[in-house]
């Protein structure tokens, strides 16, 4: 300030000596300013030279994660992923020698012969497509051929490395990479945002389930089948298969029958498996005790129909025995006494009146009677007159024979058991039901002896029903199913198997019923998957196990003595 004011004052009048001094001081000021400027520039330059890291940070590659998320199985194995592929095309005008080019290309593009390639690259166009999805490795091979006029365009495509395994669960995407079927469609928003999705499916278990069901279909010349393995505590679907299936990578070219998900969308009258729920209702409502006797001898007529049994009984049975020997007549009489209100209440609680909560677009809406009369009450008790999907039944059995808590099916891996707990049946009812289902497998009069696996205490129920055709039933076309829980003393998993239209075979003495078709395959599956699921074999003769599966079966014990083995 002082300097500046003095400078201004000196402009008006000054002696020569004074003027020199002023000029020198002005010069000094200019020098200082210049020095400051250069120092600033110098410092900045020096700083740039030394500290490049912060500069580099500004250019850190921001490679966007906008690729569609992967779908993983519960162990982290890749089920669906997005991979780069190359679209290969030729510009015929750039190709010098089409003959030679075709010959060279044919060595790499093995799915086309030389002649086809030649025709394509000699067309009068500037764009001749050669391959739609070429792996990066093959594309590199093509480039190495050094053929002029061959071009590639990189793009991303969805790949399903497991091909057929869980194809129905996965579904697929369209050319724009948007989910159009299966979990790809249901979880499209999540996947499109780049987030990975972990399913409840275990690929190893899935492979076993598929292999066993598939071989049983072949063995009985059946037209299809389905299988489900579900965790009772969490409701997670560990494996789910619908056959015939298809390669998920070629979903666009697959026939409807193969694409149809029998496990989640197919509606079937699943027959006697419904007796499990019927018996649970009888006990839970307090109207019946398991020891109450039921008339299975006298003729049961409802309207024009007579309800009859596959094997007519010689003596009356108690409620438990009705389930074990699978008596239609007995079940119908029980349901008749329960009435429509109780039956509807429990079927509704078990989720039979709506689609399942599964994370798929392909879900079947059950077909229930519009008029719920006496005939309907009776037929529903043994699984006729109501069509549901296999997932409906599997979850309902998980509820009924598990702990009585409502089980909601899910395809997404859960970190903990479901929070909402609806107690449909008491644990006591569920335990009694399991003891009865165990006898279906272990008692000689049970229908599912072929499902027994030493040590895993399989408890189940078979169901054989004739398929609906036109106005009636087709006596030659059966749906055979078997639904089971294991181990019976402490149920962990439900296994459902269904074989569609099996034909009687020599090895099955011409039988094509559930006990011969669906039950044995379930036994084989359980034997293979139980160790993988961490279920340890136990000795059924241990006192506490025997105690937990106790039942009073007067009629069957009489017969059991005759069979000499129990």
């Amino acid at each position, binding site marked *: 300030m002082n300097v500046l004011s003095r400078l201004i004052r000196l402009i008006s009048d000054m002696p020569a000596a004074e003027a020199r*001094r002023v000029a*020198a*001081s002005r*010069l*000094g000021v200019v*020098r*200082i300013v*210049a*020095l400051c400027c*250069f120092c600033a*520039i*110098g410092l900045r*330059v020096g700083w*740039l*030279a030394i500290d*490049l890291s912060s*500069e*580099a940070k500004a*250019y850190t*590659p921001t*490679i966007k994660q906008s*690729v569609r998320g992967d779908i993983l199985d519960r162990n982290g*194995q*890749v*089920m669906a*992923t*997005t*991979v*780069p592929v190359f679209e290969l095309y030729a510009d015929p005008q750039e190709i010098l020698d089409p003959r030679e080019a075709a010959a060279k290309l044919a060595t790499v593009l093995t799915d086309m012969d030389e002649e086809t390639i030649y025709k394509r690259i000699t067309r009068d166009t500037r764009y001749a497509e050669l391959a739609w999805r070429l*792996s*990066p*490795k093959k594309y590199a091979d093509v480039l190495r051929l050094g053929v002029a006029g061959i071009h590639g365009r990189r793009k991303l495509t969805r*790949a399903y*490395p*497991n*091909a057929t*395994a869980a194809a129905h669960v996965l579904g697929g995407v369209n050319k724009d990479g948007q989910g159009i079927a299966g979990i790809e469609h249901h979880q499209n928003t999540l996947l499109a945002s780049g987030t990975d999705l972990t399913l409840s499916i275990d*690929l*190893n278990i*899935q*492979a*076993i389930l*598929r*292999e066993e069901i598939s071989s049983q279909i072949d063995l009985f010349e059946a037209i299809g089948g389905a299988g489900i393995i579900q965790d009772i505590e969490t409701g997670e679907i560990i494996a789910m298969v619908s056959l015939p299936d298809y390669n998920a990578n070629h979903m666009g070219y697959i026939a409807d029958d193969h694409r149809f998900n029998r496990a989640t969308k197919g509606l079937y009258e699943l027959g006697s498996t419904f007796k499990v729920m019927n018996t649970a209702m009888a006990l839970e409502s307090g109207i019946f005790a398991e020891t109450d006797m039921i008339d299975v001898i006298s003729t049961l007529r409802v309207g024009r129909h007579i309800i009859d049994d596959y094997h007519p009984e010689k003596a009356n049975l108690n409620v438990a025995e009705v389930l074990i020997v699978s008596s239609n007549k007995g079940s119908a009489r029980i349901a008749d006494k329960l009435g429509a209100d109780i039956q509807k209440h429990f079927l509704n609680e078990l989720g039979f009146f709506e689609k399942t909560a599964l994370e798929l677009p392909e879900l079947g809406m059950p077909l229930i009677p519009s008029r719920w009369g006496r005939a309907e009450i009776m037929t529903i008790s043994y699984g006729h007159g109501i069509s549901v999907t296999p997932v409906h039944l599997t979850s309902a059995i998980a509820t009924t024979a598990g702990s009585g808590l409502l089980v909601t099916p899910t395809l997404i891996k859960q970190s903990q058991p479901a929070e909402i707990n609806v107690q449909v049946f008491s644990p006591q009812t569920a335990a009694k039901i399991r003891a009865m289902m165990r006898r279906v497998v272990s008692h000689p009069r049970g229908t599912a002896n072929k499902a027994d*696996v*030493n*040590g*895993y205490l399989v408890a189940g129920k078979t169901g054989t029903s004739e398929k609906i055709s036109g106005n009636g039933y087709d006596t030659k076309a059966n749906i055979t199913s078997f639904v089971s829980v294991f181990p019976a003393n402490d149920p962990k998993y439900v296994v459902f198997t269904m074989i569609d239209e099996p034909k009687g075979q020599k090895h099955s003495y011409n039988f094509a019923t559930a006990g011969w078709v669906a039950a044995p395959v379930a036994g084989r599956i359980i*034997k*293979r998957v*139980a*160790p993988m699921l961490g279920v*340890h*074999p136990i000795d059924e003769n241990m006192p506490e196990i025997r105690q937990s599966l106790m039942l009073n079966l007067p009629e069957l014990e009489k017969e059991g003595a005759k069979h000499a083995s129990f």
Partner: protein
Amino acid sequence: MIVFSLRATIILTLITIMLGPLVYLSGIRKDTHESELLQIEASIAETRDSITVLKAEWAYLSRPDRILQLSERFLDVKPLDPHQIIPVNELNKITKPQTSNNIEEANLTWRIE
């Protein structure tokens, strides 16, 4: 009163002259780093591509049905039978039956008492 000597002026001028190339060189260095960065970015993207392809290929090669086929062909193993599994705390209950003379047969019939 500050008066700069001739020497100081010369030094300052020299510094100024030297600063010019320094700035220029820094600019060049920055450009090199930038292009290196682009290369690295590209190679990251490429590596990422290969990782996804390799992951997919690994999933394809390790798919359970293939492993099953291979193990049937090359390994002498079969699925576990329930009687081959016992809880750890019952290991001490295993005894070897004395009756069989054939060692292999005896090995097959280890039992839980």
